């Protein structure tokens, strides 16, 4: 079993609160990803679960047992470090065998377990080599092998792919997902890369400045972000935020005034939003060229053509952020020429003045 519960976890460094009362349930066998911008406390949270940092408050419970004061081994946890942390003077075999040597396992057991792990990770041919002779991806696999041989209930990964190049990262992502299926163990994975989060996670925890901004399945975060932070963080390029005013609330949704146009956005509203300033969120990939339900004219000053897509960036009058739109690669837009774009009301998100989302009522599957 590898069930983990965090209850009101707090971490202070001096007077600075890095993690502020985080509570979370991780189910047995789940692939949970912690994601957030740098400095949001995700690595600190992971190191507290690992037992490398003390908690300033709250309980860490694994399989019903409070483990705050237990050493990492006693928690049934293994960790893979961002920098691999391999022992450079030992062969790959000895690196993987290290945890078993520490617990004085018999030689035959060590050999069986190391060879089994090496087979899973395609390292059979490398066992006699030193880490210095391996490529980045192979080193990372050795680090994972060292975690596997201990049969932990919970695996912790601290940005394990961030030192690899883009192509290798994509391969390792697939391999880690396969490994998770094969081992069936609980995995907690920290990353700042939302592609890793979206592709690998069963559920994602989005952290912001020490708080949990939202917990949910990847597509749930994409379709129903609960606040402007998650809306802006998940999705690339980030969601466009436009000021609107609420006009009328009905059973079908909330009607807003967007640059003089009336839009009925299918969200669950309440009376308080009538006449209130709101934020309308629209993802760049939901914008087309030409007239539609909601229209606006923008002048892109940078147009990126990626082949599969064309991305345009247009400054908005009196606003800091630029307006971004993604077109199919076959379409193009000229620099510094006004272009008329439009989007559908059903694709819109609506946030109140505090940045909290009004829940979208459409179905997304």
């Amino acid at each position: 079993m590898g069930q983990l519960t965090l209850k009101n976890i707090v971490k202070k460094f001096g007077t600075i609160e890095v993690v502020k009362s985080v509570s979370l349930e991780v189910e047995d066998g789940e692939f949970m990803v912690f994601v957030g911008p740098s400095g949001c406390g995700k690595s600190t949270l992971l190191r507290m679960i690992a037992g490398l940092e003390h908690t300033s408050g709250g309980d860490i419970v694994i399989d019903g047992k409070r483990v705050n004061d237990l050493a990492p081994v006693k928690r049934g946890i293994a960790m893979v470090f961002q920098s691999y942390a391999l022992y450079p003077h030992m062969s790959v075999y000895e690196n993987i065998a290290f945890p078993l040597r520490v617990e004085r396992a018999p030689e035959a057991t060590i050999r069986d377990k190391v060879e089994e792990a090496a087979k899973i990770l395609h390292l059979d041919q490398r066992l006699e080599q030193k880490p210095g002779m391996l490529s980045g991806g192979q080193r990372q696999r050795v680090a994972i092998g060292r975690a596997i041989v201990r049969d932990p209930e919970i695996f912790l990964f601290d940005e394990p792919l961030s030192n690899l190049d883009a192509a290798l990262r994509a391969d390792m992502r697939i391999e880690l997902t396969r490994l998770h299926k094969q081992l069936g163990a609980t995995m907690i994975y920290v990353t700042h890369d939302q592609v890793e989060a979206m592709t690998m996670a069963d559920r994602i925890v989005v952290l912001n400045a020490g708080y949990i901004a939202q917990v949910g399945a990847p597509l749930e975060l994409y379709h129903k972000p609960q606040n402007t932070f998650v809306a802006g963080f998940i999705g690339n390029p980030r969601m466009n935020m436009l000021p609107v005013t609420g006009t009328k609330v009905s059973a079908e949704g909330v009607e807003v005034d967007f640059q003089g146009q009336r839009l009925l956005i299918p969200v669950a509203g309440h009376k308080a939003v009538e006449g209130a300033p709101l934020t309308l969120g629209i993802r760049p990939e939901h914008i087309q060229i030409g007239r539609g339900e909601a229209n606006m004219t923008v002048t892109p000053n940078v147009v990126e053509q990626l082949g599969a897509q064309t991305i345009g960036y247009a400054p908005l009058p009196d606003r800091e952020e630029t307006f971004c739109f993604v077109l199919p690669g076959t379409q193009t837009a000229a620099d510094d020429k006004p272009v008329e774009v439009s989007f559908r009301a059903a694709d819109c998100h609506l946030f109140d003045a505090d940045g909290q989302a009004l829940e979208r009522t459409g179905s997304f599957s």
Partner: protein
Amino acid sequence: MAMFRNDNTPMIDRYRWWEIALIYCGIFAFLFFLLSPFIEGFLVSLKPLSQLFSSPYRFWPENGSFAAYFSMWETVPGFARYIFNSFLISTVATVIVLLLVVPASYAFARFRFRGMGLVLAAFLAVSMFSGAVLLIPLFRLMRTLGLLNTYWAMIVPGAAFLIPSAIWLLRTYMMRIPPELNEAAYMDGASQFYTFRRVILPIARPGIIVVAIVTFIGAYSQQFIFALTFNSKTEYMPLPIGLYAFFGKQDVVWNELMAASFVGILPALVIIFFLQRYLVGGLTAGAVKQ
């Protein structure tokens, strides 16, 4: 026209012929200053004694021979013993220093504790004093401890004065070992001591060898002053004191003295040559991604 150039020489390494000539002139000038006492010493050891005081003085020996290298053993019969003493004193001092310094510098490199900066600064301050300044207090200390006229009288102060710089040297090396390795070992259930023995020590080996070499040379060269002050027994005397035996009542047997000096540093050279083979660079390659 440039010399020493082929197409594979990077642009930054290409020089004109006169630049290369200047560089080599500089190298030879410095080398000559550095090595001339040794060259002269070696040439003296080859000359017959009579030729040394001939005038005009000749730099190159006439009918030079290695005779002094054989006769020296008869002039000073105890000379082999002096070499052995030097060797013994330096070796024991080096072993003591390493036993104390390796764990100490690990602690200074890895842990943060109260008063650490103060202790490190104190070590630096201690090594600013030369042993000579402290000879009188040291003499009283040795007498109280009853160590006068023993090997320990030369080993203990020798080791003590070498410890501070050795700690600073090895601490710097140990700080370069990534702390993630400690964390990884801790995650795998290893105790502090197990991690130190199985992970840190092997990685720190080149640093430890450098410290061993520096300490050995230091102990070899500084034992003179302690031997002169704390020891009056001939049979415990180290090499530098032993060389005094070639100073006769009337005159100095210069050629044998020079020969003895060269023979005397031979054991130290052998040790250093042996140790430096274990100086492998790049031992931390592949530990962490930097």
